[in-house]
C-alpha cells in the first residue's frame, strides 16, 4: 500500500474512518435484516396457529386459495370474526382483532414465506400432487406465530423435484423461471 503510505496522517485517518464506518454500518444492517426475516416480532396480532390446529381447523379453512390457484391467501377479517365474534373474546389478541373489525380495516400482516418475483410458484399444483403443507412450511401446527423454518431456496425446491416420477420435466428451468 505504497499509495496509502504516501497519504498524510489526516488523510489516512479520514480514509480509515470511512472504511471502518462503512463496515460497521454493514454489520448493523445485516443484524437488522436477519432479525427482520424472522416474522415473530412485528405481526400485528400474535396469531396462534397451534391452538387453531388443536381445535381441528384445517389449513384450507383459512388459506382458501391453496388448492385453487397460485396463492394460498390470507383470510379476511370477516372470516376471523365468523368465529371470534363469540370465541375467546376476552383474550387481548382477539380484542385487537375486534378493533380492526370495528374500524373495518385490514390487518397488516407481515409476510412469513415468500418467493422472489422471478420465481413462478403455484400452490394448487403442489396440492394436486399431494404435497402436504408441512413439507414446505414445517410443522406450523406446532407453532404459535408462524416462522419461516424452511429456507425455500432453489436447492430446496430441486431436492424434491428430483425425487418425483416425472423429474425430467420438473427439472426444466422454465418450470419455475418463466
Amino acid at each position, binding site marked *: 500500500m505504497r*499509495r*496509502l503510505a*504516501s*497519504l498524510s496522517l489526516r*488523510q489516512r485517518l*479520514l*480514509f480509515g474512518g*470511512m*472504511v471502518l464506518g*462503512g*463496515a460497521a*454500518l*454493514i454489520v448493523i*444492517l*445485516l443484524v*437488522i*435484516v436477519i432479525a*427482520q426475516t424472522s416474522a415473530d416480532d412485528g405481526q400485528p396480532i400474535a396469531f396462534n396457529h397451534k391452538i387453531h390446529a388443536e381445535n381441528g381447523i384445517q389449513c384450507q379453512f383459512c388459506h*382458501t*386459495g391453496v388448492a*385453487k*390457484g*397460485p*396463492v*394460498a*391467501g*390470507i*383470510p*379476511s*377479517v*370477516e*372470516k376471523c370474526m365468523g368465529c371470534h365474534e363469540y370465541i375467546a373474546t376476552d383474550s387481548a389478541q382477539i380484542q385487537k382483532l375486534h378493533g*380492526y*373489525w370495528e374500524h*373495518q*380495516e*385490514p*390487518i*397488516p*400482516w*407481515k*409476510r412469513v414465506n*415468500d418467493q422472489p418475483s422471478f420465481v413462478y410458484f403455484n400452490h394448487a399444483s403442489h396440492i394436486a400432487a399431494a404435497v402436504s403443507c408441512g413439507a414446505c412450511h414445517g410443522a406450523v401446527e406446532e407453532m404459535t406465530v408462524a416462522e419461516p423454518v424452511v429456507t425455500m431456496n432453489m436447492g430446496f425446491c430441486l431436492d424434491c423435484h428430483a425425487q418425483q416420477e416425472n423429474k425430467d420435466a420438473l427439472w426444466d428451468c422454465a418450470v419455475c423461471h418463466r
Partner: protein
Amino acid sequence: MTHFTRRDFLKVSAAGTATAILAGCAQETERWVALEPYVRAPEEQLAGIPNWYASTCRMCPAGCGIIVRVMNGRAVKIEGNPEHPVNRGKLCARGQSGLQLLYNPDRVTGAVRQEERGSRKFEPIAWNEAINALYEKLDAAGDAVAIWTGSTTSGHLYDLFARYAAAVSAPVPVRYDLTSALNGVNTLAAANDALFGQGALPSYALTQADVIFSFGADFLGAWLSATGFGVEFGQFRGQRFGKRGLLVQFEPKMTITGAKADRWVPVQPGAEALVAGALLRIIAEEGFGGPARAEMAAALAGAVDLDAAAAACDLKLADLVALARAFAEAEHPVAIPGGALAGASNGVVAVTAVQALNALARSSGLSFTPAVPAALVAPPWSSYAEVQALVERMSAGEVRLLLVHGANPVYDLPPGSGIADALAKVETIISFNPLVDETSALADYILPDRTYLEGWGYEVVQPAFGGLPVVSSQQPVVGPFYDVRPTGDVLLTAARGIPAAASALPWTDEVAFIKEQITALPKGANGGDDDEVRWARFQQYGGWWPEAAPESAAPELAAQGPVEVAAAAFDGEEAQYPYYLHLYPSVLLGDGREASLPWLQGAPDPLTTVAWQTWVEINPATAQALGVDHGDVVRVESPHGAVEAPVYVFPAIRPDTVAIPLGQGHSDLGRYARERGSHALHLVGAALDDAGANLAWSSARVRITKLDRKQALARLESTIDPGEDIHVPF
C-alpha cells in the same frame, strides 16, 4: 485529498454501494409487495387469480372495448377486448393509460364548493348537501339551465341530460370539445349530408381496399377511431396472395400515418380541396377507370386549375395524373378526408371534394354505421355555431346554471370565443369532472363523477366497423376509490324534486335506466333469451352487436352537379405572417385531456420523439433561414395571439409551414399537466368556416421570432445532426 486515487475512490464507493443496497433490503415493503388482505372478501375474488372485466374505453370518443385485469380489487392492466368489433383486441397507448386516471393523485375526492371562482380553495361538503344544492339551483334555473358534455361523457349520461333538458324545456345539451373540432366530426357530417344525404360519420372498408388516398387524416394516430382503423390497416397491408395495398398521404406535416404511407405528398395547407378536385377532373378528362367511373367523375368534377393543384403538392402534373390513374383504376379505392383539412376555412368543401372520390367506386369504400334496432342513438355532436349561440346566451345572462361534464370549455375553445367572460355571467357553474381542470377551477361546485373504470354506462359507437351497429358496455371494474358519486345518480336524485322532470326521469338510479335501454335491444351475437341473461351478457362480452352485419346498400349519391372547390383563406397577410400554422392533436395527449397522465406525458411523440413539452416543428431549410436550431425558443405570433416554445427541426414538414402539437399548456388539470408547454389554440381566432357552422381552427398564418434563450428538448433522438447533409423532399 489531492492524492485520493481512482482506486481508493472505487473502494470507498463500493463500500457505500453495499451499505445502500443492504439499507434498501432492510425496508421490508420495498423488497416485498405488502400483504393487503380483505376486511370482507368479495365472493368472486380469489387471492392470486385475476378477474377480467369487460368495459368501454373513455380516453377518447372512439368507443373501443377493453378488458381490465383486476387483482384483489385493484385494476392493474387494461387490454383490448378481443370480442369487440371496433378494436378487436387491440388498444392504443391512451387506452392503456386509463389506469392513471383511476389512480391519479389529483382527483377530486369528494363533493366540494368554491366560494370565490378561480381561487382554487375548495371546501369539502357532504354529498346530501351537494345534491341539495344541485336541486335548488336546478329548481331556481328552470329552463335557464345549460348542459355542456364532451367526448368522455358516457352515452347514457348524455341521454339522461337530454331527457332532463327536454323535460324542463331547456335547449338540447351541447356536446362539443376540442376533440370533436380536431376530428372534424361536424364537417364530415355536413359533407356526407351534402353528398349522400346522410349527416353521419363515415366508415371506410380498409380491409378490402387496394388504394387509399388520405387527405390529412391521421387515421393510424389521432383521428376518429385510430385503433379500429389500425386493425383494418393491418389487413389492408396483408391481403391474400401478397397484395399489400397502396397508401398515399397528402398532408403538410408528416403524421404517423404519413410515415406508414407508400407515398407522402406534402400538400400546401388549405389546398387539399384543390388537389382532390384536380384528381376528379383528371379522371374525368382522361377517362381513367372505365366509362362508368369517368362519367361519375365528370359529373362531380368542378373547374380546377390542374397546374396550380400540382404546384400545391410540389408535384409535376404528370405525377398527379399518375396518382389519379392509380386511384381510378384500383378495384376498391378509398379516399379519407380529415385532420387540419376539416378545420380550414373551406373545410366542408374540401371534405366534400375528397368524399366525392369515394363516389367513383360506389360498391366499396365508404359506408355508414347502421342504426341500432332500438331507441338508442349516438348522441349528436354540436357544431361550433351552436356553441357560439350558447356562449352568447351565457354572455347575455340568459343562463343561470351551467352543468359541465366530460368537456373543458375554457381550454377547448380559442380565447376569442369569449368563453371566459361568458362563464363569469353565469350565476352557478357545476362541474362533474374528476380532476380540477380549467373550467372546474371556475366552478362554484365540483360534484366529481366516478371515472370510467368505476362507473356504469353504454356507448352507441360511431363510426363502427364491418357494418355492425355496436352498443358498447361500461361497468365498474373496481369499487369507487373516493367518495365520488355517479353523475347519473346525482342528477336522478336532484331531479326527483323538480315536478317537470320527475315524471320524465322516473328511474331509481342510472343502472335501472341503462338496464331498461339495453334489455330493449333484440338478441345479438352474444345471445340471451330473456332480459336478465341479455343484460348479463351485455356486461360479460363488453356490449351488444348483431351476429352479422345487416343488409345495407352502398350510399347513394344525393348531390347533383359538380363540387366547386377553392383554396382556403388564411388569417394574416403573407408579408407579415409568412408561414402557415398547422396545429395537430398529439397522438398521446389527444386534445389535452390526457395531459394529466404521466405515462402519456413521458411517452415520446412517434415522429419527433419529444416528450413532456410543446415544440415547434420547422423545416431545416426554414430553420437555417431563421438561424434557429433544436431547442432555440421562438415566439410564434398570429393575428390572434402568440406562444413561445422551443424549435424542433423536422425534415418532414413543408418549408412554408410550422406545426405545433396541441395538448399542453394547462393552467390546471393536476400536477403533471400544470404549467407545462403552451396551448397553441391561442393562435387561432374564433371565426367560423365558409359553411358558417364549424370553427376554422386551421386557418391562421404566423410569423416566427427567435428569442434569446434555449430550452432543452426532452427527446430520445434527433432525425438530423447539425451539419449533416439532409435529404429534404422539396
